[in-house]
């Protein structure tokens, strides 16, 4: 299926990058890609679209993952994971990851481990166009000992202590979910952003889904929030609630019970299949997912958030 897709063409200079998730994924994601995604600004909407379109043999680059990319992993679309953490956080165990690692189900997946800081520096090196960056993390641990891509060298300036080098990451595609974007691709983040500021800059192609599309004049009101300027971005996809069950600062809280329920369903292969059939393959698009979860629930989460947080106010 993927072999029919035309070669990718950069879209960073376009004056209108707004498109559907379907179009964005078919234009900018290919089989065999290294795909980067962070724990913050998780685009569940784009992961589901990639699952529907069937891209496979992906290498996932993640700082930490609490279940975002598990659908791709459990469907056998992943050949390698480069990560610091792959679990379920407080919501439970990530059995999709465990099955892949422990039983090679549904396929053998190569795994390469770093720490969170290590992954951030790999992307930072990529975004700086330098081949590596040094850190004091990971030295002396099994992470550095068992990962041949981490090189421990003596300080070349004679400082007397060793440093660990991590290789630059240049992922093919980065997918994120942001709060506001304009059609030029200026991306505004509200609240904390983990490593997303670095990640986006390291990738060749960038697809951003967003809570709200706004005018460029609206963006100009708060340019501090434009963490990613337009020249980094290839596609903008409007997808309200696009991070669900994860959080979106100032929009909605993590839907923890849905996450805990989902991880519990994924405990078995059958449960995982059923979940994917219902929430990914049983719907056309992200709006279909939201309808299946229930918009009433999503709007309740949204309104609850307004009680606690409003941008620029201390509530």
């Amino acid at each position, binding site marked *: 299926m993927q072999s029919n897709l035309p070669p990718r063409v950069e879209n960073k200079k376009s004056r209108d990058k707004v498109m559907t998730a379907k179009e964005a994924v078919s234009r900018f994601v290919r089989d065999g890609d290294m795909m980067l995604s962070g724990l913050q600004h998780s685009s569940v909407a784009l992961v589901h679209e990639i699952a529907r379109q069937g891209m496979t043999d992906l290498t996932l680059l993640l700082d930490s993952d609490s279940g975002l990319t598990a659908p791709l992993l459990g469907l056998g679309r992943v050949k390698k994971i480069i990560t*610091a953490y792959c679990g*379920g956080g407080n919501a439970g165990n990530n059995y999709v990851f465990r099955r892949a690692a422990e039983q090679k189900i549904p396929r053998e997946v190569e795994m390469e481990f770093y720490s969170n800081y290590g992954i951030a520096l790999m992307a930072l090196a990529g975004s700086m166009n330098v081949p590596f960056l040094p850190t004091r*993390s990971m030295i002396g641990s099994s*992470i550095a*000992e068992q990962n041949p891509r981490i090189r421990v060298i003596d300080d070349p300036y004679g400082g007397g202590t060793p440093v660990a080098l991590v290789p630059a990451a240049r992922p093919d595609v980065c997918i994120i979910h942001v709060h506001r974007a304009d059609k030029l691709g200026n991306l505004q983040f509200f609240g904390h952003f983990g490593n997303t500021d670095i990640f986006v800059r390291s990738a060749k192609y960038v697809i951003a889904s967003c809570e709200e599309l706004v005018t460029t004049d609206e963006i100009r009101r708060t340019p501090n929030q434009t963490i990613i300027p337009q020249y980094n971005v290839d596609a903008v996809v409007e997808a309200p609630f696009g991070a669900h069950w994860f959080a979106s600062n100032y929009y909605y809280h993590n*839907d923890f*019970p*849905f996450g805990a*329920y989902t991880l519990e369903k994924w405990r078995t292969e059958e449960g995982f299949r059923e979940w994917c059939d219902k929430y990914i393959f049983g719907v056309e698009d992200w709006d279909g997912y939201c309808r299946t979860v229930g918009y009433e629930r999503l709007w309740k989460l949204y309104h609850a958030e307004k009680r*606690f947080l409003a941008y620029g106010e201390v509530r």
Partner: protein
Amino acid sequence: MKKYAKDYTLNELLVVTTAKVIHDYETLIAGVGIPTLAASLAGITHAKNIVVTTEWGTVNPTPRRLMFSVTDTTVNERAVALPGSQVIMNDMQNGRLDLGVIGGAQVDRYGNVNSTMILDRETGGLKTMLPGSGGANDIATSAKRTIIIMRSTRRCFVEKVDYITSPGYLDGPGCREKYGMPGGGPEIVISAEGTFRFDPETKEMYLATYHPGVSVEEIREMVPWDLKVSPDVRETEPPTEEEIEILRLLDPSGMYVGSGKKILKEGEQGNFGVFLQNMLDSFEPMGRFVKRYD
């Protein structure tokens, strides 16, 4: 005269014991769950001037509801700064963070922690895959001192960990210095059975306190090496009534300190009603506490 609580859970004891290790005016890096609860408790009781950072790049969040994950809106609620994850890690590597709290599935006599994988004793192959380091390795390497919380009972103490995710003192004295680690290493291990500290000379773990209802002998049997015992060994101080009262306000549903997580998992799509109500209900009582930073 302190009034000790009669009823408390093991996790409540762990939170209270962790909070006592936090000194006033320290800058912390705390994971979401027991570490953030302990930091909140310390901030309310004896350490009002601490600064709490999280590894996802937030400083002093003071939410009026429970934190569930490091990416949550709560983790930046009422924060004073949001520098980003890599910048917090830079600051830590540069010696700005005093105290980190980590956990894991295995710990050995030098305080090395494994949260990556458990190997099969016979074949040496992979038995159980764990989530991995996250930021734990970075914290163990660079925070000035670390607290290690081991919640799983019994088998978590091992002669040698299967995988060193987070370095303690590695093979003993001098190792951290040889590798140029900015941080000083683990100060204390808080387990389900007691608390353990490290000999300043040999870097070996010794038993400092045993939890109420657990004996020194039981702990020595559980640990696979010849565990040294402090000459001043005593019972772990139990939580006071006040501490338990505060904890039940901070975690009203018992998500971390009780059985609240089970309730939230119930039913098709989880128990959304209880989850939402708990969140909204915590606004008023928690609002009183967050004022302490103003």
